[in-house]
């Protein structure tokens, strides 16, 4: 079984508009791939379509997680199969503490009738929090309620650390973060890097890639991956901007 997330010829439509067009990408476990591109090019659509958001209609293609097609699975089945998405705008769940939220998520991964070992859970939770330099008082706060931008993103990283996904899609995790928060969040992600996890880092800016150095960089434009390369590609984009991509890969129909 190949340990990789394989996106094959994926096309996605949102409210009759085709956003992703025949997109293909392979993310092996243990690697970090960055997806860069201008706003409105379909980056977040890719993240949500992979996670199974009901508003995103897959019109063709397949997505194989370690060889298994996840497009036939429910949102929660995909999650339990090892797919994690760090949200750009995570929801608030009033009254639900971070600890209880994570317990429910962990419990959902156990067989029916099996109970989560509470002591072990808190031990792991505190270890991960220490690793990510998160204050323990954080666990009793209602999830994302009144959180700052930085706290929300750190909370996403904490969840990722606890749920230990095989593949994590990080949807513009750097957006809305000041430089200190960006550094802290990036350190967290770096600690979660390892042979058991593949990370797809979606970003608009090159800045986060100074902290999280990717193995590969893909450039997305108009619903497709138009260019792939090493980490230097990100620097090139930062220097030259996205305009040259737009010119080079403009729709043939528009050119003609």
């Amino acid at each position, binding site marked *: 079984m190949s340990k990789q997330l394989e996106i094959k010829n994926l096309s996605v439509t949102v409210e009759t508009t085709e956003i992703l067009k025949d997109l293909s990408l392979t993310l092996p476990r243990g690697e970090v791939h960055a997806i860069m591109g201008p706003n409105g090019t379909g980056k977040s659509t890719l993240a949500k379509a992979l996670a199974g958001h009901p508003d995103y209609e897959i019109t063709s293609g397949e997505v194989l997680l370690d060889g298994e097609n996840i497009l036939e699975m429910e*949102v929660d089945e995909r999650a*339990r199969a090892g797919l994690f998405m760090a949200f750009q705008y995570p929801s608030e769940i009033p*009254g*639900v503490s971070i600890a209880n939220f994570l317990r*429910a*998520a962990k419990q959902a991964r156990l067989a029916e009738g099996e109970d989560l070992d509470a002591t072990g859970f808190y031990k792991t939770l505190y270890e991960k929090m220490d690793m990510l330099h998160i204050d323990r008082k954080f666990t009793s706060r209602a999830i994302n309620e009144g959180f700052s931008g930085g706290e929300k993103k750190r909370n996403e990283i904490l969840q990722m650390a606890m*749920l230990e996904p095989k593949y994590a899609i990080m949807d513009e995790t750097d957006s809305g973060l000041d430089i200190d928060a960006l550094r802290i969040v990036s350190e967290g992600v770096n600690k979660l890097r390892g042979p058991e996890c593949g990370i797809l880092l979606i970003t608009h800016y090159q800045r986060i890639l100074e902290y999280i150095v990717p193995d590969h960089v893909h450039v997305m434009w108009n619903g497709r991956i138009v260019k792939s390369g090493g980490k230097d590609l990100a620097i090139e984009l930062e220097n030259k901007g996205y305009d040259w991509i737009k010119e080079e890969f403009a729709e043939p129909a528009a050119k003609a």
Partner: protein
Amino acid sequence: MSETTTPELDIKTDIGNFVYPEKHKYDAGKGLSEHTIDYMCEVKEEPDWIREFRMNALQTFREKPMPTHWASSDLNAIDFDKIRYYLAGDQKPSRSWDDVPDDVKQTFERLGIPESERKFLAGVEAQFDSEAAYSNIKEIASKQGVIFVGSTEGLKEHPEIFRKWFGKVIPTGDNKFSALNSAVFSGGSFIYVPPGVKVSHPLQAYFRINAQNFGQFERTLIIADEGSEVTYMEGCTAPKFDTATLHSAVVELVALKGAKIQYITVQNWSDNVFNLVTKRGLAHEDAEIRWIDCNIGSRLTMKYPGVILKGRRARGEVLSIALANDGQHQDTGAKMVHAADETSSNIISKSISVGKGRATYRGLVNMPKHLKGCKNNTECDALLINTNSRTDTYPAITARGDHNSVQHEASVSKVSAEQIFYMRQRGMSEGQAMSLAVNGFINDLARHFPMEYSVELKRLIDLEMEGSVG
């Protein structure tokens, strides 16, 4: 008369959705008449004053119209002629757990009473059908002089206390269903706590309806004498039947000077039950009465626990949670009648409507002009899950005079598709996600509940929400 002879257990997936073979030695048959009351009084060997009380109540019940001018017209679906008003097994109330018949124990087992609560079972008075099948006064309570018996035993053996307060907080004619209860009551608890005694453990009662067409009419009377404290807990689940089942209890609480009573209910009725209950407390000077009321299930629940704040500085509180699933209507609320200076009351009500479930809040807060220093706080929060859900709030607050204060807040919120998506992305099923959102919504209220009850409430909500997902 035997109800059914099926030897096998009929266990379905829902909790409470099961039936045990029944052996009823006494069965008053269907329908309600003077004959029914005579039959009951004879079987129960009740004194004449109770027979007279019941007969008068029957008259009042017949005279009172259905309250459909303000309440749900669904009440008209109750066919009083098809209800069995009295059924009882041939077992006498048992004193110890060992004496409890095995099939009754099995029922408790199937009810899924958590381990943490079984340790309390030694002190439980549990009602199996209309007669207490098991009643064992916790040793520690009886040593303190606390009386904790069934209502029938209470009226026979402690008439000097029972008669003084019985029917005084909720008169027979309070409403049609309090009249019905007064005519045919059986089962329920009688508790008396002597002055200054603080009952260390909550007194618990479990009961369930286990006979088709059988209306259950418990009558509970709790008297906390001066400076005493007591907590009473009741929880119910009922098996599912095709025809409507009526449950109509009356609960009266009396807190004398400086006494504290806390009455906790977690109810999980099957969705064909009419649950029409009258609950009220009378708080004397410096006394405190708190109702904690959780209503899950039933076809229609109408219940507005109240406190009459009769003595100076008396305090009343109602904390309630109602969950209305598809086809269910939770019509609940609270009544606070301020009748002395410096009395205070607090009402926090949370309702959850799922699918076509409907939740109604009705409040009544009354502060007359001549009183000073009275306070009321009312908070009503509604959570809607699904666009079809419905919620209504009728907070009737009458505060007169310049020396009293009232505060009222209401909110309506929804569980959004984005919230559900977020939770499902973390691996929770749709039902688990909704259940977590609902538990979060009631969290700040549920933390006032004793541990075992908040655990059970969470479990019941989990089951409700699992079942609500298609």
